[in-house]
């Protein structure tokens, strides 16, 4: 019971609780103190995630039975390869975006202020005298409410990634969804409609997931992810058992999570929400928040339900929706004239890649290569390749999309517009921003060396091994499309005046109140650049990634 707990296991609990504690405390602080606390918390989360990643990489699955109560009574926190990788990506992107938001408070949203200035003398006198109910209100840039909400969101993300329990996963998803909606609403009056729509979607998605969890619980009698997976495997082995409840549960869970990741045709909410969110929020939503739903989807399909043959229709339907997402999202991205909606549609397209592996899961035979000389594939190779390819694509998307949205939001804040035609030639004034956009485009297209390339390569090789050649066609089409729409976004910014005869006139940049703010803004450009650089550099990690994912893998 009171066995000494290792430091790593403490990290497993603290990686959720420390950001939550910081979130609660920041409610009581002023703007500047919130920024300091936010950056300190980012450093703490990085420090807490690192030992988890190191221990998991060395081949150990970390488990912590909270309060000393083992499953099925208590809740177990569990970190395997999948958890550690998502945890690490979240820590990196979260820390970089936090530093960006601390350096540029204007990027955190818009707040309402009373127009009339109160005299300082009434602060502890009669409060009712200073009532401003009838005073007109005005919008100002910067919203310190970003900090408690984002730190709470971070805590929820980590809670989802280290959860070993289905109901607890639901609570984590609720925490993420609620704070994400509130973060969108920080974008001011015009973002409220998008936030409200997002709220309905997030709640509906959670509700469907919860019903699915209840169904699984009713047939397995446990909420623990590993235990319920074993119970379902036993049920399936009995032969005459009725698996309709499990199939329905997986349908509901997949539908609920597809709503939350915005899989076509359930993507309508994402465009207004991601493009009207403040500059520091869009990267978090696109890089991290939808990854939480993807993570739970992978858990449900691989760990809970296992490869049940009854799920084949559902797998093909979802893969079909994924293919449609790649095509439709790309076409819609090509039709956009503004930077942020274009990037949002690119998210819709990229989501499609993560669903292509589902038919492979149910048909992991290496039939296509059997009988050919020199091909000996060990069991689970197709599964491992498909999963690590998908995870690499998702992680690469997280880094690249965070960088792209940060750069686009930065340009939008500077020039009060994100019309691509008006931003022509912005590369001359902001070489570093446009450079980071270029780097993240390399990652999103999946050009060699980037993590996106490793992901596509791994997915393609396992698709070929299993004889699913259609995946190759989809991957090639998606790559060409993404090259087209990202060129459309980035190329006009790179235009130099010598290239053509048209004069380049950028819109008037918004003037900043102080010189110190200007230098901070300059330094803030380092954030997207760093993420862009990481997108390309992490491409070398493809093989390492496959190794890490073997830790605690279900095969």
């Amino acid at each position: 019971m009171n066995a000494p707990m290792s430091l790593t296991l403490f990290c497993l609990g603290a990686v959720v609780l420390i950001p939550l504690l910081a979130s609660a405390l920041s409610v009581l602080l002023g703007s500047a103190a919130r920024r300091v606390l936010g950056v300190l918390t980012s450093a703490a989360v990085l420090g807490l995630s690192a030992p988890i990643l190191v221990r998991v990489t060395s081949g150990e699955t970390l488990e912590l039975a909270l309060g000393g109560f083992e499953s099925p009574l208590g809740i177990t926190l569990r970190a395997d390869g999948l958890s550690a990788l998502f945890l690490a990506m979240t820590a990196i992107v979260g820390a970089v975006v936090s530093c960006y938001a601390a350096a540029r408070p204007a990027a955190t949203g818009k707040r309402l202020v009373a127009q009339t200035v109160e005299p300082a003398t009434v602060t502890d006198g009669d409060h009712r005298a200073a009532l401003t109910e009838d005073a007109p209100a005005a919008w100002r840039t910067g919203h310190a409410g970003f900090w408690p909400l984002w730190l709470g969101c971070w805590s929820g993300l980590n809670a989802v990634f280290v959860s070993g329990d289905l109901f607890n996963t639901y609570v984590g998803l609720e925490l993420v969804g609620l704070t994400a909606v509130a973060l969108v609403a920080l974008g001011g009056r015009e973002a409220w409609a998008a936030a409200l729509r997002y709220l309905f979607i997030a709640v509906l998605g959670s509700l469907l997931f919860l019903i699915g969890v209840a169904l699984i619980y009713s047939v397995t009698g446990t909420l623990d992810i590993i235990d319920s997976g074993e119970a379902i495997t036993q049920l399936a082995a009995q032969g005459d058992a009725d698996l309709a409840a499990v199939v329905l549960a997986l349908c509901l869970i997949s539908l609920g999570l597809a709503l939350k990741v915005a899989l076509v045709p359930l993507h309508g909410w994402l465009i207004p929400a991601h493009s009207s969110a403040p500059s520091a929020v869009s990267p978090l939503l696109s890089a991290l928040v939808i990854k939480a739903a993807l993570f739970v989807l992978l858990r449900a399909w691989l760990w809970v339900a296992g490869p049940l043959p009854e799920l084949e229709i559902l797998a093909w339907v979802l893969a079909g929706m994924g293919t449609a997402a790649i095509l439709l999202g790309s076409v819609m991205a090509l039709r956009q004239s503004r930077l942020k909606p274009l990037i949002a549609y690119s998210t819709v397209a990229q989501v499609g890649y993560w669903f292509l592996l589902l038919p492979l899961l149910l048909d992991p035979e290496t039939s296509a290569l059997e009988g050919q000389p020199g091909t000996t594939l060990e069991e689970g190779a197709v599964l491992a390749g498909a999963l690590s390819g998908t995870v690499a694509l998702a992680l690469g998307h997280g880094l690249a999309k965070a960088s792209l949205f940060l750069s686009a939001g930065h340009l939008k804040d500077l020039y009060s517009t994100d019309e691509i035609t008006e931003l022509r030639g912005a590369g001359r004034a902001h070489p570093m921003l446009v450079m980071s956009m270029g780097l993240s485009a390399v990652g999103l297209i999946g050009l060699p060396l980037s993590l996106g390339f490793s992901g596509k390569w791994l997915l393609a090789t396992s698709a070929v091994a299993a004889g699913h050649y259609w995946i190759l066609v989809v991957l090639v089409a998606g790559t060409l499309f993404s090259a087209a729409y990202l060129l459309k976004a980035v190329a006009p910014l790179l235009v130099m005046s010598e290239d053509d005869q048209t004069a380049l006139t950028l819109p008037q940049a918004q003037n900043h109140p102080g010189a110190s703010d200007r230098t901070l803004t300059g330094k803030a450009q380092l954030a997207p650049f760093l993420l862009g650089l990481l997108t390309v550099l992490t491409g070398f990690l493809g093989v390492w990634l496959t190794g890490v994912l073997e830790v605690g893998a279900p095969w």
Partner: protein
Amino acid sequence: MTGGVPAADLVLGVGLLASVLCTVLPHSRLAQSMGLLGLGVLTTLAWLRLGSVDVALAEAGIGGGILAALLVWVSVRSPAQPSPDAGTAPRWPWLRPAVGTLSAVTLILITAAVWLRAEQSLPAWDAAVTAAMDRTGVEHEITGVLLVFRFYDTLLESAVLMLTAVAVLALGREDVGPRAGLSAALGTQPSIPASLHWLIRVFAPALFLAGLWLLFAGSTDSGGAFQSGAVLCAVLILLRSAHVPLEKLTLRWLRPVLVAGVVAFILAALAHLSAPFSFPVLLGIEVLLTLGIAAGLYAIYLCLENPVQREVSA
């Protein structure tokens, strides 16, 4: 099932369906809110009938009480707002309800069929709960599950409530400081009849006591932080309606109380990651959580005032 269904249950079931229709069908917001209020009462009775006293109390406090208070407030404040769909009249006005009903019926039929066919397996923790109850220091099993065995879920849920209040406050005026988000709410209240004023004076202390009883009875009987917090929030709303000056108290204490429960819970959890809480720690957390829940619900109520009235462009 030999003796058939008791008449009282039939009446309750029909009443539930009727109150759902009363909530969905009317076009006036006020009528819809009243329908929901009735639905809350009947749902509470249904839970009581099913023997789930804890769920019934939570339903009465939060689902029926606080939610209805919020909705009534909104419908009184802005009764004639057009619905979002009213602007564009659909070509076939019957199409949406028809598709909705059809989908709902299909969904319910499929789910019910699967649910009835599935071999339900009993929760694997039944025996374990009984065996471990003496280690918890509480006697009521539901409290044991909520605060001891699965305390981590409760911790995250109380954080969800806290962050909801933070989110709602963030939509108001100002972003930091004691007045942040609250300035629109601290205006004068509409006057109420003297008889109601008198009634509130009588009821508020009794309700306050009831809230405390729910809190402390939770360790041995049904009740607990969420139900108690809802009742305490109702006391605050009543006092505010009766023009009791709460502004100073609200400005000074709302935020600290809102976060205190969650902060104490997290600190205790960090110290007890692999060992159960001791009873005094548990009780302290429960008291702070109750106050935090009451503060959170009250903050949501206060923030219903529209912050962008008389907005001018910056």
